């Protein structure tokens, strides 16, 4: 079952383009610039990973694509172009026609995203009945087929179950079946495996990778788990403080970062295949997005920061190999990586690892 993506000839251009997106949230303490000028594109049939710490704006970016921002947040400028059409100016009623047949979303916690008082078969069949005008019987048939495709055993029987009767992994499969029901072109995934065990995560990731390959669906995959991104995505966008820090093919970015923040993320996470003597934390805390630091947003935590970093906002600088970095001194990461490969850790790193001066004093009243 391949969806007719673009009638009349070969599809051209990226499936989804986000251009200079700005999202602001109004709070009592001021306006939070949650997403501040983010641009990326997702080619057809490929998966893009959006990674970053909590508060980096990755979930807000994802939610603005689907038009499901919280009531206090809004897209203030920028374009979200799906298959040649800008979604930002659309009204909710117009978006309703796009959600499902064009874009679908898989949430982190399937229990709170599924309707607890509706049988899962009916939840899967709802979309096709609404958007494609299928009869109840035809939609039920589609639901059965979808449940089989996502690997739910005994689908005939399980169709009549309620979400609470399913395990976490099975619930996530139901979510995926719902997302697939109207044959969307883009599926947005918001940490779909964070709540699952590794063994179940492995099954779900394989399923998503297969769907991506077989039905030409494009994925946008939000997570903070770098290994998961390495497994499933072709491209990765690293976000920091509402901006893109680095962008490029996943293998290049994770193995050979060109931004100190990406380098920090890679070095601070314990890697199963590569046990380090000490993990090197990123000192400091993420920036306030009400009053973000001047210049590069990462400079207060960056060990390579120089004077110009405090003043100049670094633009996304294109690099060879389809990559880009928002760092004025990205050469320093290359030096640092080379030193590490030669077996010499940066003395600054060793000091950071030993002292951990990350957060010595309580940040009074800075709770989110």
């Amino acid at each position: 079952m391949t969806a007719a993506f673009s009638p009349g000839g070969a599809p051209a251009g990226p499936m989804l383009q986000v251009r200079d997106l700005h999202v602001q949230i109004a709070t009592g303490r001021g306006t939070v610039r949650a997403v501040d000028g983010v641009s990326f594109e997702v080619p057809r049939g490929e998966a893009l990973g959006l990674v970053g710490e909590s508060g980096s704006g990755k979930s807000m970016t994802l939610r603005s694509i689907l038009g499901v921002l919280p009531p206090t947040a809004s897209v203030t400028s920028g374009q979200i172009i799906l298959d040649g059409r800008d979604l930002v100016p659309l009204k909710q009623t117009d978006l309703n026609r796009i959600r499902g047949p064009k874009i679908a979303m898989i949430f982190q916690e399937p229990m709170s995203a599924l309707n607890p008082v509706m049988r899962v078969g009916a939840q899967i069949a709802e979309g096709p009945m609404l958007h494609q005008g299928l009869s109840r019987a035809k939609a039920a048939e589609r639901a059965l087929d979808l449940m089989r495709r996502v690997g739910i055993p005994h689908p005939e029987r399980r169709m009549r179950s309620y979400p609470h009767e399913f395990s976490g992994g099975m619930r996530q499969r139901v979510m995926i079946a719902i997302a697939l029901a109207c044959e969307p072109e883009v599926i947005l995934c918001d940490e779909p495996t964070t709540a699952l065990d590794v063994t179940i995560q492995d099954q779900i990731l394989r399923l998503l990778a297969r769907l991506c390959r077989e039905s030409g669906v494009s994925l946008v995959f939000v997570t903070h788990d770098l290994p998961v991104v390495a497994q499933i995505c072709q491209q990765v966008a690293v976000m920091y403080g509402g901006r893109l820090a680095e962008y490029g093919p996943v293998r290049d970015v994770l193995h050979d970062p060109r931004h100190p923040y990406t380098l920090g993320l890679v070095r601070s996470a314990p890697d199963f295949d590569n046990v380090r003597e000490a993990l090197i934390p990123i000192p400091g805390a993420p920036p306030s997005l009400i009053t973000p630091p001047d210049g590069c947003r990462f400079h207060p935590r960056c060990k390579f920061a120089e004077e110009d970093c405090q003043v100049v906002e670094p633009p996304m600088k294109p690099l060879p190999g389809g990559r880009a970095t928002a760092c004025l001194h990205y050469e320093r990461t290359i030096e640092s990586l080379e030193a590490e490969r030669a077996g010499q850790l940066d003395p600054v790193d060793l000091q950071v690892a030993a002292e951990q001066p990350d957060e010595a004093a309580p940040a009074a009243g800075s709770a989110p």
Partner: protein
Amino acid sequence: MTAPEPAGQTAGSGPLLTASGLSVTFNVGSAFGARIRKENFVLRAVDGIDLEIERGEALAVVGESGSGKSTLARALTGITPVAAGEMIFDGRKLAARRRGRDRRRIQMVFQDPYSSLNPRLTVGSMLSELLRVHKVVPRSEVESFSRELLNLVGLSEEALPAYPRQFSGGQRQRVAIARALALRPDLLIADEPVSALDVSVQATILNLLRDLRAELGLTLMLISHNLAVVRHLCNRVAVMYLGRIVELAPTEELFSNPQHPYTQALLAAIPTLEPGSWDEEPAITGDPPSPLNIPSGCRFRTRCPLAEQICHDQDPELRAGAASAGHRAACHFAFSAAGAAAPAGGAGQD
């Protein structure tokens, strides 16, 4: 850094903690309702575990959710009453209701530092209450000792008058660790200490635990589902499945030569920074069975690619291999050609 010395450093030889036949059960719902639904009423979360924790080691307990690893931790700490079995700590049998010293010497750090700290107590009052009640130091030294504890976990003294809400997640976890260390425990049990924290903060807490172990000679038991964390921090690993330990070995031995098919599947499921090939079958299919309904014989057989008739009939015991006494596995085919020949996470079934 003048570190508070753990109390039992010099005492005795032999394992620090020996648990034998340890079982923890929970009653689910009502006995009457269970009879009507023809379901089991008693959930065996921990089902007859024998475990020795050596002095100074860092033991990891890994497994899927529902495998009973947190329940085991809580039973060892004495928070959850045990249904059967006994625990011997530093040569003394632990009573069902622990008192003073026994309570003090095993301390726990919980997963979620947002809910494990009392929101109405300042860090200072939290620590001084503990120190006074357990008479850890003379009253006159309570405050200086509190400062010392905070320094030990990398917090400044300004933290004393602050409430938990004023701290970030990583800082709260440091407070929780300071609270556990206040009683100079010999055994620190950490239940998923970093999984509620942001990635960039996890490293600081892991480094802290590693340094504390080196400085204080603490014995650590780490509950985790993240095998990368385990490899970084621990020297021995116990793999749990449905309330039992199915494999127990030194870390590198376990990861390089896993004997139990479940361990092999767990290892194969870890995502790494190297892009994988998705053409193979998943290492393990299906969900773990409900602990209310544990399969007969080997409890892993319903998901096991190697399962045969013997697995259905006989419950395999945790036994050591001929070559290495420190490596034990509960599988009929472990340490044999059949078990070793199974590629790590190779075969899958449906």
